[in-house]
């Protein structure tokens, strides 16, 4: 696995991106012994010439971590889904409504997670699931907005993801969303911070390789929110982005910022075709 590149070779391969040796675990994720999840599949057309195959972060985690995600009783993230189910059915705000008042059963939200972030014609903007949830809270319930990566919000996104598990991620990158998608793509390839590292340096050129003690994945977001054994809680997409940008010794963008919304749309589109897995389990 270790690449021993001699001096001559180092001179020739000026950009080393072509020598990736991905080493994901060969395994199949079957949820609750029922639903076979798509954790590796042909890359979407827009990644032609960049990646042949897209892989869930699940393939890069250890045996026990992978097993935890396969069974809802073992998945610690499901506790937060249950908490959100209660909130789903509880009225809040001046209109005296709950989420259920408008949307019915939480299970009826199946199919929502796979298409977010999504262009909203009336608002004239690309909306993440978090933005849509806060829009409902403010404008339909007369309730206070939730903090973008706070506990209430991340729990609710876990509930909404959970009812779409097994459905393929399918975000649209054209139409009104296109300019946002392009902006996200620019960010993905921008080398930020004092370490001058882009998302692509780690997750496109080096997935499968170890960076110190970490086994690099493709940095896909089909598994979000993610229950991390490291901090024993659910982690939102933008919180993960922030952590990765911080690790380049950069000034980060803020969760919910236009930059991270654009980046989310672009990263989501790199996983088009992978099953929704949230809440997944990672280390």
């Amino acid at each position, binding site marked *: *696995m*270790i*690449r*021993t*590149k*001699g*001096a001559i070779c*180092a001179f020739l391969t*000026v*950009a*080393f991106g072509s020598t990736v040796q991905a080493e994901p675990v060969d395994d199949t994720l079957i949820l609750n012994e029922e639903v076979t999840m798509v954790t590796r599949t042909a890359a979407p057309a827009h990644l032609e010439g960049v990646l042949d195959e897209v892989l869930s972060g699940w393939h890069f985690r250890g045996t026990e971590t992978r097993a935890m995600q396969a069974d809802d009783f073992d998945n610690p993230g499901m506790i937060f889904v249950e908490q959100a189910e209660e909130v789903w059915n509880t009225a809040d705000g001046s209109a005296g409504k709950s989420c259920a008042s408008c949307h019915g059963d939480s299970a009826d939200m199946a199919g929502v997670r796979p298409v977010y972030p999504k262009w909203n014609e009336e608002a004239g903007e690309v909306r993440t699931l978090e933005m849509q949830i806060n829009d409902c809270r403010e404008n339909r319930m007369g309730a206070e907005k939730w903090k973008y990566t706070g506990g209430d919000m991340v729990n609710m996104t876990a509930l909404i993801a959970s009812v779409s598990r097994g459905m393929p991620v399918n975000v649209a990158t054209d139409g009104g969303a296109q300019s946002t998608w392009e902006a996200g793509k620019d960010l993905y390839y*921008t*080398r*930020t*911070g*004092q*370490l*001058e*590292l882009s998302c692509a*340096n780690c997750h496109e*050129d*080096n997935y499968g*390789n*170890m*960076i*110190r*003690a970490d086994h690099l994945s493709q940095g896909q977001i089909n598994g979000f929110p993610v229950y991390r054994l490291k901090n024993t809680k659910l982690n939102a997409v933008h919180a993960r982005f*922030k952590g990765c*940008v*911080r*690790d*380049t*010794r*950069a*000034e*980060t963008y803020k969760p919910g910022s236009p930059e991270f919304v654009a980046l989310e749309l672009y990263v989501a589109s790199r996983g088009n075709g992978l099953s929704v897995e949230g809440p997944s389990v990672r280390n």
Partner: protein
Amino acid sequence: MKRLTASVVALVATTTAPIAAEIAPSDVTYVDGAVDVSLTGEPGDPTRGREIVGSKKLGNCVACHEVSDLADVPFHGEIGPMLDGAADRWSEAELRGIVANAKIMFEDSMMPSFYKTEGFIRPGNAYTGEAADDTFGPLLSAQQIEDVVAYLSTLKE
């Protein structure tokens, strides 16, 4: 009389020498990616260099490179080439250039530039996620670069 003159000269030399000799990050001259002269005007210390290469808080070179000599340090990465035998492949001047700013020797390299202070996009204040302030300096000091070069120069097969 003669003795007195000599010690005055010596005094002047010791007070001005370090300032004159240390080359600032933006003043380093690269020739084909290599840097001929010591950044401090003095040789580095390989023992300190060994620590810098292995330490997460200092160079953290093993995040990306494996080094057999550092087997006592856990978790070596596999992003860059193994550093065993680096001194057989590169001269001291080339090693200095690679450590100070690898992107000159290897265009678009993923390796960070350890002795550079300009040209970053959204530079931060270390790992805080906040913007850089006026304490911003290169990842390694001139002395640390020389120590690392001295250590790499011992890596022969």
